[in-house]
């Protein structure tokens, strides 16, 4: 194991799953068995993934921290690195550095009702928290999941939504924007903030994790405040342009925070204290 903090571990691709027209989720495992045994992470953290020859990119670790056979990440095909990752197959080798950043405060959330709200490509960073919570079901109260996308074809990890609903005390509400439904769509139709509002969620002893496009967040937050959630009970995971992931290259610096070190998990209270530089 090198002491070069920028040198990644080599990982073998074990499974690629195409989630939408331009989103794939990839499962990888350590080429070096001993590293696999030593490795652990907490949900909420991210890694820097390499496509050698193209570059590196940060993605949230979207698998549960309890799963030992692989780690998983999910990406949209948008740029040079994701284009290279898009072309990966089983057996291909990529690089991984991590886990970096802070994690969802599962200890703080113990005993609380959990409200997970996501939009579009933002499901992966929520998915890991959902699985973790389901695998430690007794530690948490009611779980409500509201997940929406522009259209049915944009929903990521759609097959898992139904499985989650099978758990005790778990309610899953999936929605698509008006016009995005298919003839056989059985979920809701509407924008996420409106769906949250009419979902009748109780928030007396709750924590919420809200991740999605800025506009979704902008309109969802007042709904949550109306429900009685305070800014310190609402969490999100920030996405920023990153390079090193270890707080040195300066790219992800926003106000007093380095998203890669002080985040990516922040409470709304912390976000409000950051300058409008995101």
């Amino acid at each position, binding site marked *: 194991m090198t002491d070069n903090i920028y040198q990644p571990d080599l990982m073998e691709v074990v499974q690629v799953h195409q989630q939408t027209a331009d989103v794939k989720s990839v499962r990888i495992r350590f080429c070096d068995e001993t590293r696999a045994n030593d490795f652990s992470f907490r949900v909420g953290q991210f890694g820097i993934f390499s496509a050698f020859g193209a*570059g590196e990119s940060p993605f949230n670790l979207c698998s549960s921290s309890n799963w030992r056979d692989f780690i998983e990440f999910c990406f949209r095909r948008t*740029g*040079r690195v994701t*284009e290279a990752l898009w072309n990966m197959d089983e057996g291909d080798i990529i690089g991984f550095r991590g886990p970096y950043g802070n994690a969802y405060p599962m200890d703080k959330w113990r005993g609380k009702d959990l409200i997970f709200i996501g939009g579009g490509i933002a499901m992966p960073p929520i998915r890991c928290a959902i699985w973790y919570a389901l695998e430690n079901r007794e530690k948490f109260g009611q779980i409500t999941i509201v997940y929406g996308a522009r259209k049915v074809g944009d929903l990521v990890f759609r097959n898992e939504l139904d499985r989650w609903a099978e758990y005790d005390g778990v309610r899953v509400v999936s929605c698509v924007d008006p016009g995005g439904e298919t003839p056989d769509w059985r979920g809701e139709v509407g924008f996420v903030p409106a769906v949250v509002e009419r979902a009748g969620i109780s928030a007396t002893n709750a924590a919420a994790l809200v991740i999605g496009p800025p506009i979704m967040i902008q309109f969802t937050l007042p709904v949550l405040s109306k429900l009685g959630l305070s800014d310190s009970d609402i969490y999100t995971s920030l996405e920023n342009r990153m390079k090193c992931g270890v707080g040195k290259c300066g790219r992800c610096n926003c106000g007093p925070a380095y998203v890669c070190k002080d985040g990516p998990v922040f409470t709304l209270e912390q976000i409000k204290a950051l300058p409008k530089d995101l």
Partner: protein
Amino acid sequence: MIATLRETCRQLLSDGKVDVVIGYGHDAAADGAEDAPVYPVFITKPEDAGRLVWNDRCHANLAVYLKHEEIRSLGRAAIIVKGCDQRSLVVLEKESQLDRSKIYVIGIACDGLDRPKCRTCDVHEPRGADVIIGHKAAGTGYPCAGGVPSANGTQGLPDTLPDDRYAELRAFLARPSAERLAYWRQELARCVKCYACRQVCPMCYCRRCIVDKNRPQIISTSATLKGNFAWHITRAFHLAGRCVGCEECSRACPMGIDLRLLNLSVAQAAEENFAFRAGDDPAAEPVIGSYAIQDKEDFIR
């Protein structure tokens, strides 16, 4: 002369003819101090026109600001140009980057700022200006074509190209190519890829520079000899027939690399092969953007 400059600009602003004057100035606190630093200023209020100055430290080519969104957002602009800077306006107009009718050009007569380009300057009084501050009286011996553009817009080049403009460059280019390569290897090794040369150049107005594109990454962003050669040679080629010789690239380089030798050599090639000097004739078609039957083809072998 400075009083005239300030009054002209004050008038333009208070009459509402322009919203901003791009010129050289002191900061507000300098209070007219002789040795106060001079830098580009953007005067939007008539009462601030007193900040404008003209002295031997007014080096910057202000034409570069006409492409900045932060300046365009201020409204209709008046811009102060020296003769050399004015050439940039001609090129920009020919390349459809600015609408000449929408800017007010204040030419300022300049007897040199002690830079290499000043030694062979033929535009002490800028051409193509809406007004010239500081006309020189006849008989001062300036070898220039004169100030206000003629009615039919055909100023054209002087009758004979002042061939001593490229004397220094010619001497440099006469050295054996191995020697020149060694020179550039030594010089470009110092480049840190700060892109000051690009940012200061009015001709570099691509919204996304080729070096900032990564699909594919055609030019290495690394400040290695290979990356530096790739950058500077590419930029020189992109300036073919467009470089007006304002020499800002050399002035801006923090590492003291004499970039004008590279960029001017391409300008010289355009002049010698196509009788075209960028920025001289507003009516002339850009050499890279046009084709004439008489164009030489003897380089095609």
